[in-house]
């Protein structure tokens, strides 16, 4: 009884040489004036019961009060909000400046600038990431052969000027620790270590905004 029949109307349809099992949609039925009036009112009352149930059950309310719950708010560990270089406890990262992430980036948001190290080997000078064009596709993290990159969940990155969304990710320029340990030639190793010591540390990601750049900083230096 009622407007909708509860029973499932199964059927089959043939498309090409395949038989496809289907479920038929029931039609809402309308009959006499009083039938419609009775079941119409009944359906409305049933709907009202559903909403009333929620009204009286505060446990079902789901609102999160965002700025107040900052302490409890935890993003999932894979959440993609900010690209960072992984730093170990001593503050070393693994980036060698191989530029694989640079070429994998679909919208040119990553710019890796190399320089020639003291031993003649290429090493990282600056790792520049433009958050304003980044689509957080994770391809850079996926392709990185040295496991140097990761996406973190720091999502509060709004700024008032788009130019402030250009970051330098590496805190120091120079060869990675691994490369230094690998180099057998003790002379070059010393040379590398020397350059390594004189590295300059930066705190956190550094916005690269230069007001004299016309318009938006485009990553080309």
């Amino acid at each position, binding site marked *: 009884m009622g407007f909708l029949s509860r029973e499932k109307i199964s059927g089959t349809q043939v*498309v090409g040489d395949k038989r496809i099992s289907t479920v038929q949609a029931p039609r809402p039925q309308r009959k006499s004036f009083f039938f419609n009036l009775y079941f119409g009112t009944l359906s409305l009352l049933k709907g009202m019961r559903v909403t009333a149930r929620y009204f009286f059950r505060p446990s079902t309310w789901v609102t999160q009060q965002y700025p107040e719950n900052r302490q409890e708010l935890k993003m999932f560990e894979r959440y993609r909000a900010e690209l960072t270089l992984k730093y170990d406890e001593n503050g070393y990262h693994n980036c060698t400046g191989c530029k694989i992430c640079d070429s994998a980036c679909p919208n*040119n948001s990553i710019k890796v600038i190399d320089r020639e190290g003291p031993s003649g080997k290429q090493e990282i000078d600056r790792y520049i990431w433009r958050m304003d064009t980044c689509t957080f596709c994770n391809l850079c993290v996926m392709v990185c052969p040295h496991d140097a990159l990761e996406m973190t969940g720091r999502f509060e990155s709004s700024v008032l000027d788009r130019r402030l969304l250009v970051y330098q990710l590496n805190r120091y320029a120079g060869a990675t620790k691994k490369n230094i340990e690998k180099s057998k030639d003790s002379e070059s190793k010393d040379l590398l270590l020397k350059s390594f010591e004189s590295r300059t540390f930066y705190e956190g990601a550094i916005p690269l905004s230069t007001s004299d750049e016309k318009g938006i900083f485009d990553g080309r230096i």
Partner: protein
Amino acid sequence: MSEREATIFSLIQSCCSEVILNEGSGSFSIQVPSEKLVFVMEHLKKSESLAFVMLLDHLAVDWKEMGEFELVYQLYSFKLDQRIEVTTKIPRAIPNAHSVSRIWPIAEWQEREVYDLFGIYYINHPDLRRLFLEDDWKGFPLRKDYEDPFMLELVKE
């Protein structure tokens, strides 16, 4: 090519002998001369044994080096449960093609999209206007020789 596709192909060839198989496609595809296009399409839809009643998709490919546009139609037949790709080539210098919007109404808008982005003029089209871009847009962006001073190119060293 499966057995069924071979029968379909022979059925199509019996109505128009100029139809050839298109080798440059990963799926079942035929190539039709552009002047025979409407005729073959009509046959594909109306013929009872084929009944390609649904025009899934229509697109164009710009082959600049060969001086050609390739028009691709994806058809689907419920009766055969088969998708077919119909392609035709028109010269790049005179990009005119016949509209199939009388056979499938949806072609009217799909052709408008292709016109908008490739500048292919469809003869007998009821309402050939730009679809996505503004009416006073200059040029056809998906052509390979399209240049736009504002277009941001990826700069790769």
